[in-house]
């Protein structure tokens, strides 16, 4: 396992400095990110929480190079994403970042195996079959590899997406409400797997969620409100998160 090679140098998988993102103009202007500075250490599982409109999705999208900042900088490793054009940015997303979205994670015409290998196919790279087997057996999909997404349950689909996110051994995985559409059992399975990836493979994961139970799987919770980081908590439990949110709301 040589996952940690590039990360040892900094210890920080991704970080943002003074990130500002503004939507709209004039009266309707919304500061989705209002001077956010935040680090994500390698090998940790971070949950980002906040009420609707707090800017948590925007934070995730700008960190992942899917959206651009209006000012400030955001880094994957030591690469400044704000200086990159579309093509190198796309290549960073392909090689250094993994994604798990809330829904529609898979290409319907491809089998589970093909979906998992998709980032490598796009890059024209051969998969590391040992790593592929490890990932597949960890998510428990070995017997579902030749099924198409329409033949898989919602939980299985999200685990295929998670396997895809890991197969390139990315520097960081971004997950946007990954268990949002799942029943509690499937959700728990998925989150357990994500935590396992952090523990066993030293993977770095950043997850946006509004659910305190989901957040409790993380090593750290960052709270966002009105585009600002308003607090954080290490080793959260469901109860401590709920308590903290109550305090914020008050």
């Amino acid at each position, binding site marked *: 396992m040589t996952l940690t090679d590039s990360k040892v140098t900094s210890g920080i998988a991704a970080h943002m400095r003074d990130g500002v993102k503004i939507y709209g103009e004039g009266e309707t202007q919304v500061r989705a990110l209002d001077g956010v500075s935040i680090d994500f250490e390698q090998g940790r599982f971070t949950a980002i929480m906040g009420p609707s409109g707090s800017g948590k*999705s925007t934070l995730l*999208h700008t960190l992942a190079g*899917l*959206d651009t900042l209006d000012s400030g900088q955001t880094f994957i490793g030591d690469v400044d994403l704000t200086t990159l054009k*579309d*093509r190198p940015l*796309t*290549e960073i*997303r*392909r*090689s250094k970042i993994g*994604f798990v*979205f*809330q*829904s*529609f*994670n*898979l*290409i*319907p*015409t*491809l089998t589970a195996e*093909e979906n998992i290998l*998709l*980032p490598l*196919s*796009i*890059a*024209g790279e051969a998969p590391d079959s040992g790593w592929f087997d490890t990932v597949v057996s960890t998510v428990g999909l070995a017997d579902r590899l030749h099924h198409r997404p*329409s033949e898989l349950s919602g939980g299985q689909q999200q685990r295929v997406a998670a396997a*895809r996110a890991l197969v390139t051994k990315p520097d960081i995985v971004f997950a946007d409400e990954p268990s949002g559409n799942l029943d509690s059992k499937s959700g728990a399975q998925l989150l357990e797997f994500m935590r396992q990836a952090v523990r066993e493979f030293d993977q770095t994961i950043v997850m946006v969620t509004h659910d305190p139970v989901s957040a409790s799987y993380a090593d750290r919770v960052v709270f966002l409100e009105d585009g600002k980081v308003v607090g954080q908590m290490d080793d959260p439990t469901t109860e401590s998160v709920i308590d903290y949110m109550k305090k914020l709301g008050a």
Partner: protein
Amino acid sequence: MFRASLKSLFAHKLRLMMTAMSIVLGVAFVAGSFVFTDTIDARFENLFSDVFAGVDATVRPDVDDFGAADASMDQGLLQQVLDAESVEVAAGSVGGFAQIIDGEGEPIGGQGPPTLGFSWVDVPSLNSLRITEENGRAPADDDEIAIDVATATANELSVGDVVKVQTEQGLDSYTIVGLANFGTEDNLAGATLTAFTLDEAQRVFGLEGRLTAIDVVAADGVDNTDLVASLVEIVPSGLEVVTGEQQTQEQLDGITEGLGFLSTALLAFAGVAVFVGAFVIQNTFRITVAQRTRELALFRAVGASSRQVTLSVLFEALAIGLIASAVGVLAGIGVAGLIKSGLDAVGVGLPDGPLTLELRTVVVSLIVGVVVTTIAAILPALKASRIAPVAALSEPVARTGRKSLRNRAILGSVLSGSGIAAMAIGLLVQTGSSLLLVSGGAVGVFLGMSTLAPLVAIPFSRAISAPFRGITGKLARDNTARQPRRTASTASALMVGVALVAFVSIFAATIKSSVGDTLEEAFPADLAFASTNFTVGVSPVAVGLLKEVDEVEVVSPIRTGIVSIDGNEVNVLGVEPATVGAVYDAKPSVDVSGIGDGMMVQVNVLDTTGRSVGDMVDVEYLDGTTIITTIVGTFEDPTFGNYMISDDVFIKHVGDDIAIAFADLGEGVDLEVGREAVATALAEFPTIDINTKSDQITEAEEGVDQLVALFSGLLGLALVIAVLGIANTLALSIVERTREIGLLRAIGMIRRQVRQMIRREAIITALFGALLGIVIGTGIGWGVTASLADQGLGSFSLPVIQLGIWLIVAALAGILAAVGPARKASRLDVLKAISHE
């Protein structure tokens, strides 16, 4: 509900435009054909009304439909006409063939519009030609001529120039003394006009002391009917009297008939374009209905009946059809203008004036456009009506369903089968409606094949995409296979165009190889002589000169004309019995030298008439005589006609015009030397083309190639519409796959790869359509040429390279169609695409 569908229409302007475009193009062609034809009719009506304005009546030889050109009357008749009380003034004239030769010895005009010679009429009210003061004067001496302004302008000739003029009598020099207008025009539909003095005209046309027409102005107070009646009394039998209006009408009928082929052809191509457009429309509506499932279901959920949903889709089609057809009519005026300039460019000058837009054109074009669009939308509309209200609530899923393949296979086979049957009946059984059966059959085959196409879409797209490696190739293949009906229906539009183009290519290749084979086999002669002028053949004087040439061993002229047998007009050829065997091997059953006063008949034709050698047949000739003729033998080659008689009989009863003459050179004479010798001998006849056998083959092939190019160009329109259809389908399916493409981009697909994926989808679809088209076109081509094998199309030829080129063109068309959609897909806003709702 209607307001809702109108709103939905304008909310998708691009979709609207792309759909409308396919209708606009088809309707433009329909309207263009009408505008063009109407314009010609109107212009020529004006022109001929001007030309015959001063003529109240004309005395002329009574020629029937066969149109014998050299009929004439005694010049003495003119005085009798002038003496009649009902006549104010009259003038006699003669007309015939005359061709001006330019300074380089090249004939001017004649390859299309006629080259006409006639005598100058000194009575101004009876002369349709006008010479204005600055353009000189009328010919007064026998070595003077006047020519038309347009010919003079085009060839930089002016008053005072000396030119040579070719007539049947040979070549003579004349001074141009005047440039004449024809009515109000510089020119008569591209014809080249030469006016001589009456004496000179009579000499060069071989009509000394004779006239071909006497034009008459009625005395004051005599109306035309009375004038005609009084003239009929004095003219001898064999002559007729007609009014100016009748002549105007005759000329117009002639023009309409001549250009009728063109307007029929244009309408046929317009039909193809509209048919292809219907595929595109149907496909677009099917996709948009699928995409609007939730919207339509919502209408149902809030209380709209399924009937209202159907009507709303049909109403949308109606609105698009109406708007697009209106634009199409306007574009059609442009099309007509283009055709007119095209004809001008190739030298067929049409009278100037505005284009004619009849109400009928607008009505027919609108009806065609609206009806076709609405009919094409019926199936999608019915599908829309079956959407359940509950669909409003469920997540739309990209459908992979395959509906009742068995029914589809049965329907497709029945359609194709009856299409093939109709074509076979049309081709093999002689009925009056062959053309209708063949084209209707072709429509059946196309509909049937497009019904069957989804069944083979998946294996086809697999095979086609085999060379496409990598993930973009795989995704492109999967996407075309995902909805075989959509892929097949998109490809079908291209299929129709390519099938027709392939058919034309195959037909042409077969003609070419057959012509080559026929020439090799049937024409052993070294040299052939034909007139470059469409109006007249080879002069008998020229053939006489050829016989004097030392290098020439034998010359044999072949005359062709029309006679009537059993009430049918048939082509007859007159041959020189003693010499024809040496130059033309028609594979006769007995030696042609013994034909005498008898007749030989093409062997297959003889079979179908049920007669046999030795029978007697009534042959009606142009001059009104009927001769009972014995069938003395048969022959095989049908190139010149199916009935053969001796030239003695032919010249006596049909005419002296020689279609083609062949010469064989003496033993040991070099081909080039012989050619030089005959060229020198024919120096007086620059309108005669001297060809070796390879020249003839090349010439025939060039003619065929030009036709193929013309047809392919016109069918190109159908290809353009099909390409629009592919672009439309792609654009719509990209909208459907927004999230999928967004996901691909998010996890690392670069823009170039997205474009490549879309482009490959387009190529697969285009090649699928083109391959189907080539298969169908080859089938039809084989069937049609096989059924015409008797008529000289025996050597079926498959132009593999040309068909290969069409495949490449189709692939390129696919790439072109993908440009817009691929660009759109690659510029997709990733964040929007992946955000939920």
